């Protein structure tokens, strides 16, 4: 294990050098988070299919329990139970639109992970940085449990537990637990836990701050204290079900799956469940007594329990829906936690947008009317009134709006339009609009994936390290 220890020390040092201006030390956060023995126990695996590029290079790294798809290079890194999905990367010849520029992509884009430690982290989408179109880099970065690095090149940063950085390039930043950042480009920022920030310069700026004490009940993680709280308890309680799907070689789901839909073999499926046409259920998703109508999806680390999704619902990475009924076209953003009262307590009307990192945790039934924008922390009807607004009204905002801890400046119509366009794009990419011959997306392409496993050295000084491996067609 000496090499593993050296690798860990190297990564921590490199991250700390980048974060010295913020006086942030990543070591006490991660030093005991994953015992090295754990890093030897789990195999890594990768998918191959006729629909995805195949180009992997793993060197001097540990990849325990991690999944790879597409085009990816990992060097001098520790990846623990992380998902590196390179199935939305740009291809050579694509044209990337940035402001008034149309920039040609000169070669296939690659996810390039160097000198980084990712713990139960999702990496997906593509680099939105116009300066590094062919390289979605993650360097000198440490990401903690259930972080999402989504189209977000990163250098010298720390991403807290359940935090998401979305289509944003970050350098030398600390992203607090459960923060959601979509801001284009950020440098040298230390962002407090529970910050929701969506900014498009010259168009709009949205910020919400979760109440810190209340948030700590859901996720609390600081130097020397491992992540804990309701979110962690929730996933830990369901860990065993995942153990089974990873241990069994040939797994057959009993739920009928239409030919236009896919239910990943690394998802947990606890009947009764219904999978409609064009439904996508990704690896590490969890279904239990769940009804998914046409075009709905459950992405990585999503949990849908005792719930019904009427159709064309996006359940973004890490979102959890328990005891809820969602109308058509309801969007539930990254890592949101929606928990109804016992029984079917939460109803969300069609075309509503639940902002990323929203918490709705109710004791009595609650109905969100159709066409609403919802954010923040909601535990009762009064909270809902303070943390939601009809999308139509929000679209009319042309200067600013403040509601409690939510601050908005700019063009509301532009903000809503950006969200709606993105939701449409996600549904399209997921294959929700597949018509039997055209508009294929992940739901159709992911049916034909085979999985292969990789193992590390079991003993000796290289124990835990994976040998250098290059995988190509």
């Amino acid at each position, binding site marked *: 294990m000496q090499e593993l220890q050296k690798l860990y020390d190297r990564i921590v040092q490199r991250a700390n050098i980048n974060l010295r201006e913020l006086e942030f030390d990543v070591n006490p956060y991660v030093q005991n988070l994953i015992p090295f023995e754990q890093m030897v126990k789990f195999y890594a695996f990768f998918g191959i299919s006729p629909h995805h590029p195949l180009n992997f290079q793993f060197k001097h790294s540990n990849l325990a329990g991690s999944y790879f798809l597409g085009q990816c290079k990992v060097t001098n890194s520790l990846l623990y139970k992380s998902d590196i999905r390179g199935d939305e990367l740009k291809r050579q010849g694509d044209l990337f639109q940035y402001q008034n520029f149309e920039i040609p992509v000169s070669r296939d884009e690659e996810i390039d992970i160097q000198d980084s430690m990712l713990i139960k982290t999702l990496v997906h989408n593509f680099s939105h940085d116009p300066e590094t179109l062919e390289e979605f880099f993650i360097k000198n970065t440490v990401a903690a449990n259930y972080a999402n690095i989504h189209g977000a090149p990163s250098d010298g940063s720390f991403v807290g537990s359940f935090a998401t950085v979305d289509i944003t390039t970050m350098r030398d930043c600390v992203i607090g637990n459960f923060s959601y950042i979509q801001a284009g480009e950020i440098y040298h920022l230390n962002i407090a836990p529970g910050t929701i*920030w969506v900014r498009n310069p010259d168009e709009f700026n949205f*910020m919400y701050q979760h109440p810190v004490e209340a948030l700590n009940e859901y996720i609390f993680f600081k130097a020397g204290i491992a992540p804990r709280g309701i979110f962690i308890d929730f996933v830990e309680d369901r860990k065993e079900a995942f153990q089974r799907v990873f241990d069994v070689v040939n797994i057959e789901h009993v739920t009928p799956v239409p030919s236009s839909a896919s239910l990943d073999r690394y998802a947990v499926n606890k009947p009764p469940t219904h999978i409609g046409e064009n439904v996508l259920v990704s690896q590490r998703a969890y279904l239990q007594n769940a009804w998914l109508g046409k075009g709905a999806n459950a992405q990585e680390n999503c949990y849908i329990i005792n719930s019904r999704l009427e159709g064309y619902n996006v359940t973004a990475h890490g979102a959890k829906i328990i005891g809820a009924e969602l109308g058509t076209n309801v969007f539930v953003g990254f890592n949101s936690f929606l928990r109804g009262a016992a029984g079917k307590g939460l109803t969300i009307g069609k075309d509503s947008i639940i902002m990323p990192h929203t918490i709705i945790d109710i004791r009595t039934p609650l109905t969100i009317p159709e066409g609403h924008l919802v954010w923040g922390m909601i535990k009762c009807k009064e909270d809902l009134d303070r943390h939601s607004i009809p999308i139509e009204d929000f679209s009319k905002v042309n200067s600013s709006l403040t509601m409690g*801890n939510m*601050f908005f*400046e700019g063009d509301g119509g532009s903000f809503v339009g950006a969200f709606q366009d993105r939701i449409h794009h996600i549904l399209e990419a997921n294959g929700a609009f597949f018509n039997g011959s055209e508009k294929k997306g992940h739901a159709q392409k992911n049916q034909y994936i085979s999985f292969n496993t990789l193992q590390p050295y079991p003993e000796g000084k290289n124990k835990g390290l994976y040998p250098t491996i290059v995988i190509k067609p």
Partner: protein
Amino acid sequence: MHYIVKNLMVPISDYATISEGSTLLDAVLSLESSRVDVGNTIYPHWIVLVMNSQNKVIGKLSQINILRALEPENGHADMLQKLRNFGFSPGFITILREGSIPAEKSLEDIYTDPQIMNMKVEDFMRKIEKNDFIDENTPLTTAAHQMSVRKRLSMLVTKEGEVVGVLRLSDVFTAVINAMKTTQFGSYDHDE
């Protein structure tokens, strides 16, 4: 005239001082008395120096520091700072700040909160920084430049490392404009 800093500084013994641990009310009264005891200068003193138990200057208190301390708590204080860092416009932040002060409240209502009156000076003073100091032998031209780029209304004057006085922007400015007038009009007598 080739002034150096010590030609224009106000000796520290002429300045109002207050001890660390004093209250906001003490500071207000001290600032008031410093304005009365102006001595022979045409500009009154607008700051009070905060001293620690070793008689070292650790902070400065000006009218603006006190007004800021008196600002009613609005729950948005930390958030306003954050909004500034995160790209919200100054106009938006001003609207938020002004909107947080209830229009129906009088000056007396807002500014007599006992909790605020008993705040310790170290909670709202401007802490002394390394670039707040200037040596007494520094040429005035250098001093004027430093005050300009460092945005200082006053600097602490040192002699062999000890604070011996205060250099005020008002005195530096007067010297500068007198030099300008002398250059333009020859020897200038302001009584003419």
